[in-house]
């Protein structure tokens, strides 16, 4: 055995290039797995740290049971403070804010919160110290956190404008820059006096929450229990530990999404890498047939031969995943740095490498490599000792391929069955599950059948593409299908990548198309006034829009948070006419929200068993009840939401600080010049900084931009698949070139120019990659369309197949093929013609 081990290790060392390429493919896969864990662990750790410091002093917190309820009444603060054992009481007031510097530039972060609030004079936590200046003393002073001040160039003494949703723009002077304990990248904090904070961010009667610190000797549980006893219904008290745990849990679940995405990349990379590893070992075994046969002839047992190949793959697996682990840390670091540069609000902190990450990475990487090496190892063990004496070796038997194809056909049939079940299934969940099953089985079937499919695709394709190249083209084509298993395994890296990419592309395009459709069918306004950040359209801006000359009507839409017949339902309140601004597809009744009428969606009508004529009681805590009648039921519409009702309901049931509009639809008077109207609207809203005026096409564009995250993910996947595919193609071609050295030498001897040798390899590679891409695109587009179909009731009612993009991917695959062939091609062309005769 130790002799066999020596042979195995020598063999690994003898093929450095092959070794490097195989290692890289293991490395890439495991790096993504490791990177995903390191990245999320690191973020979680940093966030945990922040909560541990920022809410350290909280022993009890009082807040509303539901976050749509207004909060804690101000008159309760003193009562809470009087509870025995309460040492410090600190009201929490906060809300979104946008600061505008004196020169008119907005202080904006990309993803990190921009939050306004109260500068606490007494706090459960240590009061922050000042870098410069002092606490706000008058209503027109504000303090800003040090991170934002440095990043955006704000200094003590600077004038700023403060923009909030439900008030006019306020002028303020920066009275100080404080040291924030929340040091997440890009975070913006603007703190005011209590009076000003109440005016800007509350309804004047409630605060967001009340934090309490316990007196010495009073446990947080005791304190919380005592406070809970005096609270009216709708409010709750939590212990500090519960508060911190809940925050940590929130972050964990938010991060788990990120973790899944990165893990997905890792799995894809590993899966794709598996084919490269398999190919490498299959080729190593094929090339070493004679050597292995010789070993068998001199007495090595089958088991020993198999073990030596398995041992080789084990070594590659362990070394590759160890490198992958290191790569993963680098990847996490790079990702963090990249995201940080976008101000997404990530905390900073050292990389966290947990034992779990190390174990998962090493085990997964090694297991996958061993698995991929298993089939070649078994093939190696089957080599007969007599093969050492034979001159030529036959390629893998056709009967093996026949069995593989037969299994492939069975799996393909199962895939079709599952897919059909998905298509005819009515329930969205079941349809998606069946389609998913269909996709997975289709991938397996494609893998099994691809040696046969390779012939079907490459032969005709090769005839067309290779025609201008004559014999070179013919040689490329015949070489590409010479070893169909190998071609299939090589191309499958691209196939897998493109299945994902094409699938996501279809869903993404369909979402964009459907959104565009909804907007086209629903929004009839000439102009749409919105904001493109966390703030709503400031209330005074809505009033300003109404007075612009040329405006016929405005329709402002508001979020409405109320209970209907006792159960909470978020809907939309409308100020202004529906006709001419929002078109609804009425199923029953009329689109009438005047007086005490409302219209509801089909979905809401079905789930609550409401019908035209029903009377609904809408209520909010402490704000009474409004009675409305169902005037109509409309077909589900994402823009309209579950129900639409008149603005008076909203005005009665909504706290003052939430009296905001998320969009204002503007109709022009007949005969008004639209361009003039637009500039009028822009001028009127200019003072509110955060407001944008868009026509319908621009609005569609902005909505479509939200899908771009998905598209970005798509390109990430594509990039990764391409990198791995390139490695795989280089690997396969390099090995093929080595295998065909004598043949290439002979071709050179009988007069093939170097250029022609190179071209043969390029074309061969191009055919292999285009085959992989075609297979991937067909499956990806098919299943992308099918998945879109399963979502048709969730608003994805328009299927858009991005043909242009698909064509682009195909072209990209061809380019990738040629690129990957550059190095092997040059190597092949340098084969000396003597190679054909000598080296028998």
């Amino acid at each position, binding site marked *: 055995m130790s002799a066999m081990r020596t042979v195995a290790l020598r063999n690994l060392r003898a093929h450095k290039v092959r070794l490097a390429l195989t290692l890289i493919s293991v490395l890439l896969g495991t790096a993504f797995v490791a990177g995903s864990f390191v990245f999320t662990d690191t973020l979680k750790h940093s966030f945990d740290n922040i909560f541990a410091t920022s809410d350290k002093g909280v022993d009890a917190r009082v807040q509303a049971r539901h976050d749509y309820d207004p909060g804690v009444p101000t008159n309760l603060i003193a009562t809470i403070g009087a509870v025995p054992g309460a040492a410090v009481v600190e009201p929490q007031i906060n809300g979104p804010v946008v600061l505008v510097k004196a020169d008119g530039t907005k202080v904006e972060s990309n993803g990190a919160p921009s939050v306004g609030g109260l500068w606490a004079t007494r706090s459960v936590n240590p009061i922050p110290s000042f870098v410069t200046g002092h606490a706000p003393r008058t209503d027109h002073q504000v303090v800003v956190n040090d991170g934002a001040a440095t990043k955006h160039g704000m200094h003590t003494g600077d004038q700023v404008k403060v923009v909030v949703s439900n008030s006019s723009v306020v002028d303020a002077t920066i009275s100080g820059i404080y040291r924030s304990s929340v040091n997440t990248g890009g975070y913006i904090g603007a703190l005011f006096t209590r009076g000003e904070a109440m005016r800007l961010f509350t309804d004047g009667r409630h605060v967001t929450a009340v934090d309490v610190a316990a007196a010495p000797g009073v446990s947080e549980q005791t304190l919380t229990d005592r406070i809970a006893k005096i609270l009216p219904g709708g409010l709750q008290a939590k212990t500090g530990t519960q508060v911190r745990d809940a925050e940590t849990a929130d972050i964990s679940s938010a991060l788990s999404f990120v973790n899944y995405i990165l893990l997905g990349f890792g799995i894809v990379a590993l899966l794709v890498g598996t084919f490269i590893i398999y190919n490498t070992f299959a080729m190593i075994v094929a090339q070493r047939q004679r050597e292995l046969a010789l070993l068998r002839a001199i007495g090595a047992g089958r088991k020993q031969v198999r073990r030596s190949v398995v041992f080789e793959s084990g070594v590659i697996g362990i070394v590759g995943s160890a490198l992958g682990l290191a790569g993963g840390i680098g990847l996490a670091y790079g990702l963090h740095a990249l995201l940080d540069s976008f101000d997404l609000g990530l905390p900073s902190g050292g990389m966290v490498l947990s034992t779990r990450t190390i174990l998962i990475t090493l085990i997964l990487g090694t297991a996958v490599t061993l698995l991929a090496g298993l089939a070649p190892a078994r093939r190696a063990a089957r080599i007969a000792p007599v093969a050492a004496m034979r001159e030529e070796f036959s390629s893998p038997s056709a009967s093996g391929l026949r069995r593989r194809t037969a299994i492939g056909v069975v799996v393909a049939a199962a895939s079709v069955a599952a897919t059909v079940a998905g298509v005819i299934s009515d329930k969205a969940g079941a349809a998606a599950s069946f389609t998913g099953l269909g996709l997975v089985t289709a991938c397996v079937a494609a893998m099994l059948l691809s040696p046969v499919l390779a012939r079907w695709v490459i032969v005709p394709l090769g005839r067309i593409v290779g025609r201008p190249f004559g*014999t070179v083209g013919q*040689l490329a084509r015949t070489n590409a299908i010479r070893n169909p298993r190998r071609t299939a395994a090589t191309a499958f890296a691209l196939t897998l990548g493109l299945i994902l990419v094409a699938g996501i592309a279809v869903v993404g395009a369909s979402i964009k198309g459907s959104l565009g459709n909804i907007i086209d069918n629903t929004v009839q306004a000439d102009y749409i006034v919105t904001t493109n950040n966390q703030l709503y359209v400031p209330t005074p801006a809505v009033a300003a829009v109404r007075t612009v000359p040329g405006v016929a009507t405005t329709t402002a839409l508001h979020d409405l948070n109320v209970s209907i017949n006792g159960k909470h339902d978020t809907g939309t309140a409308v100020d202004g006419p529906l006709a001419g601004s929002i078109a609804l597809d009425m199923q029953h009744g009329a689109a009438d929200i005047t007086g005490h009428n409302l219209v509801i969606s089909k979905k809401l009508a079905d789930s609550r068993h409401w019908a035209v004529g029903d009377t609904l009681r809408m209520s909010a805590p402490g704000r009474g009840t409004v009675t409305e009648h169902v005037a109509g039921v409309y077909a589900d519409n994402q823009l309209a939401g579950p129900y639409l009702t008149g603005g008076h309901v909203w005005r009665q049931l909504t706290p003052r600080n939430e009296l905001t509009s998320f969009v204002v639809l503007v109709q022009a008077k007949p005969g008004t010049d639209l361009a003039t109207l637009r500039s009028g609207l822009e001028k009127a809203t200019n003072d509110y900084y955060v407001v944008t005026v868009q026509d319908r096409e621009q609005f569609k564009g902005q909505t479509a931009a939200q899908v771009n995250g998905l598209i970005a993910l798509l390109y990430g996947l594509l990039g990764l698949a391409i990198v791995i595919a390139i490695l795989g193609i280089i690997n396969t071609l390099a090995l093929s070139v080595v295998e065909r050295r004598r043949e290439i030498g002979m071709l050179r*001897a009988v007069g*093939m*120019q170097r250029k022609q040798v190179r071209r043969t390899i390029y074309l061969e590679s191009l055919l292999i990659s285009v085959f992989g891409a075609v297979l991937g695109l067909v499956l990806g587009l098919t299943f992308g369309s099918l998945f879109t179909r399963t979502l048709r009731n969730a608003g994805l009612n328009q299927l858009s197949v991005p043909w242009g993009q698909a064509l682009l991917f195909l072209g990209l695959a061809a380019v990738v093929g040629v690129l990957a062939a550059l190095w092997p091609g040059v190597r092949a062309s340098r084969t000396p013609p*003597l190679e054909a*005769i000598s080296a028998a």
Partner: protein
Amino acid sequence: MTRSETITGFRSSTAAASAVDVVKSYGSGSTAVRALDHVSVDLNRGEFTAIMGPSGSGKSTLMHCLAGLDTVTSGSVAIGDVELRGLSDKKMTALRRDRIGFVFQSFNLVPTLTALENITLPIAIAGRRPDREWLATVIDTLGLRDRLGHRPSELSGGQQQRVAVGRALASRPEIIFGDEPTGNLDSRSSGEVMGILRQSVDQLGQTVVIVTHDPRAASWADRVLFLTDGRIVDELRSPTADSVLDRMKRLETRS
């Protein structure tokens, strides 16, 4: 023509290929091997030459140098009137393609191409169309008309070698080189291949040079050159298997 004239001879217009004072060394310093030691030879047009000699005597090296597959250390080599020294790889490749035919010991054919495609390979590589009439003549000479659509793996060793000869003949080269073309064949197939080469010289006016170990194969030639230690030491005209064997024995006892 006397023997000394041929060995030391000047470049005559009747030579299809010639070597003048060729030295070929491998390696350098103390490990240097001189595979060819001042060899001069003319290979005459329309003649069938066999090169013989003990293993390691430089037969293959001589052939490689003559065929433009390898460069010489000193001296000069010409195919027809083209001096090979200083030719670019591109020109050299084109020369091999257009003016030289090859038959190797093994691995002669492209496994993915049919017999016919293999035969026309150098013509196709050059981007030309084969001369139909000539091709028909070659194919008839080979006796492979019913095997043209087969792939090499479906042909016997002898048939494969005949296809290789066909490929060498198809482009009507100035000279055909064969390095032990019958080395892997049984005596019957060997005889067939030599017969075809002989026929190509007699009926088609081809020039053929082969390296061989086998006195029976050498006996098909017009002229046999004997190589020992990188030098041409002897020559035989109109050889028979017996006279070749006899000469070989004498060389061996002498060295």
